[in-house]
């Protein structure tokens, strides 16, 4: 052991105060140059003023009672009214649907092991349980409603246990159960003729956030495969197939969705026999899906174009057939490369579900607007209501982009 005096340790001075800790950070990020300093002060002043006025409005002036008044109607619209569900309480049907979703979320948490799935599952359970303890009187919000809300917590747990300790805990089973549950939810919400307790509820009474979510889920699951098919068709070497795909994509992308929806309401009933096309919600769903698949096709085409041609050539050289090359080599890589764009399109689709107002469906926004129009005393609270809706939509869309970032990170692990 060398003595300390042989090689006297240089006196290591700490870095100057401007280089370390909070001060160093502030120097580097806020006051690095004179114009950055000026910018920092201008921004701080502007943000301060904005926050001051914003917060004082939110806390002192705004009247948030309208949201409590609407309550569950924001989520289900007219679904549980006397017209929709005569002589019965139908509120449990959307709630039971939510329970199924909770089970799936619990399974996704156990299978993916990712903190995103965990956070979402716990978040949904926590929010629904919190709703159960809202200070409504028992007349306004019955015990059954509250119990079904609390049940989301065991539902998530049950899903988690199911996936962890039974052979159901694979992605394949989650997908199968997801499709199955979706059909069950459609039956639950729509009802079955002749089954007591499940009397049919006409789709014109479906509404609220439930309608937005149902349309979004349907559109998302269907527009991806249709979009892939269109993208492959557009890149096909067969001239006729290519032409058809190009025309379809460009016509869909060239028109505003609102116009397409409105056309579907007027033209489709003229074109098909009357009994075939009475359901306007069905038509809106089809248009929404087709519209979204046209954009999806362009995203996926972008991914296919960005793929190095060597990939396809190597696959062909290894003796894979054309369809094998596409399904096993090109598509997986192309889709992985454009996940942000695909999720962006999912988010767009979710935001576009609001446009069903044009065909007279009362989704959450149109229901709120109609409520404000019909109740003059709440006209002054319209800003509060739409601010709240903005927050609700923001939470959903931000969660979607958060999940997309996590998925992307996972797929990059073995990639780079």
């Amino acid at each position, binding site marked *: 052991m060398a003595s300390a005096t042989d090689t006297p340790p240089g006196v290591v001075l700490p870095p100057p105060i401007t280089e370390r800790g909070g001060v160093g950070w502030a120097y580097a*990020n*806020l006051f*690095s140059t004179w114009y*950055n300093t000026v*910018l*920092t002060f201008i*921004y*701080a002043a502007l*943000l301060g003023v904005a926050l001051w006025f914003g917060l004082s409005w939110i806390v002192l002036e705004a009247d948030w009672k309208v949201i409590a008044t609407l309550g569950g109607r924001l989520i289900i619209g007219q679904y549980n009214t006397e017209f929709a569900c005569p002589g019965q309480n139908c509120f449990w049907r959307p709630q039971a649907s939510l329970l199924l979703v909770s089970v799936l979320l619990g399974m996704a948490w156990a299978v993916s092991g990712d903190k995103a799935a965990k956070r979402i599952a716990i978040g949904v359970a926590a929010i629904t349980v919190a709703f159960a303890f809202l200070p409504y009187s028992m007349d306004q919000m019955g015990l059954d409603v509250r119990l079904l809300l609390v049940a989301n917590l065991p539902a998530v747990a049950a899903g988690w246990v199911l996936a962890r300790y039974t052979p159901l805990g694979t992605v394949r089973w989650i997908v199968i159960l997801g499709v199955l549950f979706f059909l069950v939810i459609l039956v639950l919400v729509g009802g079955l003729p002749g089954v007591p307790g499940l009397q049919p509820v006409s789709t014109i009474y479906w509404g609220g956030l439930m309608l937005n979510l149902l349309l979004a889920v349907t559109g998302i699951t269907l527009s991806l495969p249709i979009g892939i098919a269109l993208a492959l068709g557009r890149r096909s*070497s*067969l*001239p*006729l*197939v290519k032409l*058809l795909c190009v025309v379809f994509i460009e*016509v869909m*992308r*060239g*028109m*505003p*969705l*609102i*116009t397409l929806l*409105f*056309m579907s309401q*007027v*033209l489709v009933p*003229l*074109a*098909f026999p009357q009994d075939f096309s009475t359901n306007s919600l069905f038509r809106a769903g089809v248009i929404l899906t087709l519209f979204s698949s046209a954009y999806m096709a362009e995203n996926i085409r972008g991914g296919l174009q960005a793929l190095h041609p060597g990939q396809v050539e190597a696959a062909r050289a290894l003796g894979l057939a054309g369809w094998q090359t596409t399904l096993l080599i090109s598509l997986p890589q192309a889709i992985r490369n454009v996940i942000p764009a695909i999720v962006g399109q999912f*988010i767009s689709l979710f*935001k*576009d579900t*609001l*446009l069903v*107002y044009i065909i007279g469906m009362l989704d959450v*926004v149109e229901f709120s*607007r109609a409520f*404000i129009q019909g109740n003059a005393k709440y*006209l*002054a609270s*319209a*800003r509060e209501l*739409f*601010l709240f*809706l*903005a927050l609700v*939509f*923001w939470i959903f*869309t*931000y969660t979607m*982009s958060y999940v997309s970032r996590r998925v992307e990170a996972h797929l990059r692990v073995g990639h780079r």
Partner: protein
Amino acid sequence: MIMIEALRGLTYYKGVPLWRHALVIQWALQIISGVIVVVLVTTFFTNITNTIQDREIPHGFSFLSREYQTPIGQHFLPYESSDSFLYAFGVAATNTIIVSVVGVILATALGIVVGVARISGNWLVSRTSLIYIEIFRNIPLLVQLFFWFYVVLALPPVRQGYVIADRIYINNAGLSLPWPSPSNWDAAWVWLAVALASIIAAMVLYHALTRRETLTGRASYPLVTGSVIAVAIAVAGWLFVSAAFGDAPFAISDPAPQGTFGRIAGGFTISGGLMALLAGLVIYTSSFIAEIVRAGIQSVGRGQTEAARSLGLAPMAALRHVTFPQALRVIIPPLISQCLNLTKNSSLAGAIGYSDLANVAKTMTQTAPAVSIYVLLAAAYLAMSLTYSLIGNIYNRSIRLVGN
């Protein structure tokens, strides 16, 4: 010829069985899909035609010359209820085009500012941009439009409204600004022609001086000279026209409230619906454009800037001649598609009481054949989207990498 060749080939054909032959499968697939589509489309249209005839639904385009007889909210072309359907359609299309053009300009400007601020080295500045983008991109446009609409609606009435410098009025009727109005139409037209000529002259001069600078390396100040010349010609034209006609071509008309209810007269009033629509469209679209701008600037490799600096270019010159042209190549195509989105999104105007093309067309279907109106509407929107594609294609051709 080909058929005969194929037939001859078939007689002694020993290759892959026909039902597995790639060419056969491909053509069979194409023919089947073609037939299906043709059958679907013809069924669709024959059914529509039949239904129209059976139910005696009015059709055709003769309605276009009839009087529309319905008021249109705010309009930029002069319009009266006695005008024809065709003219009303044009008025509505102008409304959409004006909203789109103003919206595209404002959204691009705001988007560039936010996008550049997003990559600022200043933490506060870049975080503010990030929050701006994440908030406004993720909230549906319709919710934002309704929010702005009710914000405008909650503004005080005209008499109690906000007044800035005695000239700008903000109230629940909208935003009223001073606006130049021609005092003498002849003089105004002459001066506008002079102004146009001055702009053209300045552009010619700018190009000539830029060329001289590039070729000789002598500093020629094209931008300064061009703008000075343009302003000089315009001012000289103004003085000359004023002297010749005895009247200035334009006078500023100030808005002023009139009567006890306070209707604003004079100036230019942007109606509440238009204000909410522009606010919503511009803020929503700018958050997308900001991300495009950020991605574009970040897509240019650091090496490019470093190489430019090591060749002796000043920082600003490196930005202007090396980084920015390359970033623009990445930025412009998605930017154009965002502008198209803004135009199509302006069709939500109907929800907040601004008479855009889609809204007027929807109202028209109550008194005119719906099918014909949809044909017109589809044609109008497709024409707009084709215009954007055309601009995009021209631009893409002009920036195509040489030798690519």
